[in-house]
């Protein structure tokens, strides 16, 4: 089992969701986050005072998958999120030692799907 974490541009979320559903990856958690990589933020001004706002709005996806779904998930995220410009985001794949479904106490592969 793997935990796929992806940081993407907010406006690509709808496309990424579409690609994930097409790859039959239906269970995702989405949060709104702030961050920046190499992308440069936009300066803000409040009554003439400059504030260098280098933190940009991003969307973070968390998807727990069984091994055979890892590559399709990664491909779907790239397909949906890629614009080719700086700021498209990153995908992290982590080992997932345990997964438990609260409703049934199922564990492991059946609990993920």
């Amino acid at each position, binding site marked *: 089992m793997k935990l796929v974490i992806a940081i993407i*541009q907010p*406006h690509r979320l*709808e496309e990424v969701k579409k690609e994930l559903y097409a790859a039959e990856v239906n269970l995702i958690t989405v949060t*709104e*986050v*702030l961050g920046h990589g190499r992308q440069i933020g*936009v*300066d*803000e*001004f*409040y009554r003439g005072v400059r504030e260098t*706002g280098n*933190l940009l*709005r991003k969307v973070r996806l968390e998807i727990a998958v069984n091994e055979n779904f890892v590559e399709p998930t990664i491909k779907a995220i790239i397909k949906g999120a890629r614009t080719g410009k700086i700021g498209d985001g990153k995908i992290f794949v982590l080992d997932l030692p345990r997964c438990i479904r609260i409703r049934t106490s199922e564990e492991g592969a059946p609990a993920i799907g």
Partner: protein
Amino acid sequence: MQSMNQINSGDTAWVLVSAVLVLLMTPALGFFYGGMVRRKNVLGVLMQCMACLSLVSVLWGIYGYSLAFSKGNWLFGGFDAVMLKGVGAAPNGDYAATIPQAAFMIFQCMFAVITPAVIVGAYAERVKFSAFLLFTVLWLTFVYCPIAHMAWGVGGLFRSWGILDFAGGTVVEINCGIAGLVTALYLGRRIGISHPSLHNIPFVVLGASLLWFGWNGFNAGSALACNAVAVNAFVTTNMAAGAAVVSWAALEWILTGKPTIFGSVTGAIAGLVAITPAAGFVDFTGALIIGCVVSVLSFFAVGILKQKFKYDDSLDAFGVHAVGGFWGMFATGILATKAVNAAGSNGLLLGNGVQLLIQIKCALITIAYCAGVTWIICNVVNRIIPMRVTAGEEIIGLDLSQHHERAYTILD
């Protein structure tokens, strides 16, 4: 010109109060629209409404009032009142014989302010701010002022035909709604909009409620006196809005299973739009009919027509204002009665079918003139300043890309 002795303090007080009620409608529109856009664009919308309030006020004093209301030809007023020359304490008997002309001018100023602000709803979330300013100046000059002159100005085409347009069914509502459709088509669809994307419905309700509040001044103030016609306009305005809310909510309940607050306030605005030309010419029964029917028409326009033809009128300037305005003009021609306003006219139901023809003719000319000139203005503006922001700016949002500000924080 009449003597100053005929100024009536009650009439003057009512028109000033009405002017301040209408003033509030433009910031209210900012909140109404602001809640409907994604949160990265809310300040952009508020700023555009504030720009209309401030910039159009100034231009109205410099030349707008003169172009619309001083003596001229059938299309335009003249330049006699440029810089408000001669617009002071003395009444102008052609418009309002019992109040200072300056009171009439400032009341009309608020109408000129809110009309281009309504168009903001059509091109929201993708217009470049500098291009918006240029568009607004040109549109005020070449669309708003001529239509206002034709409907209400001395020697104006519609006025000479005997139009019944109490508070701006043609001048304000059809005008801004058609201009909205044209600009929405000209700019094209927004990036990444595949579903409704309101960010703050309580703002929408706040804005709509303040619009309703102000609209009673918009319509009842258009009597330009504190008299029975003003009272009738207040009653019909409020009741039509109520009827439109009831019918919109009922329609949702039947067709989609639940009534919504967003639908209800949209119904309120549609009802207020439709009663605008009729307020001082129809009675309570007429107001109920106008309010109940407009919701059905606007519901169809925003829920079915817009989806089918795929134009991105972001916040439904066309579906509510043009559709509601046209219905209001049409219904006035059917339901008008001299029993509430001797200076008005009877409609079709009282045997005066000619009035209905006049109403339709004026509405159609407004549509044609507004669509054509707005299209030309879009082309001219786009040559000077591209009207649409770049894709990158649109994705970041107008708040940051056009104004260097952010409405909300996630962290402290």
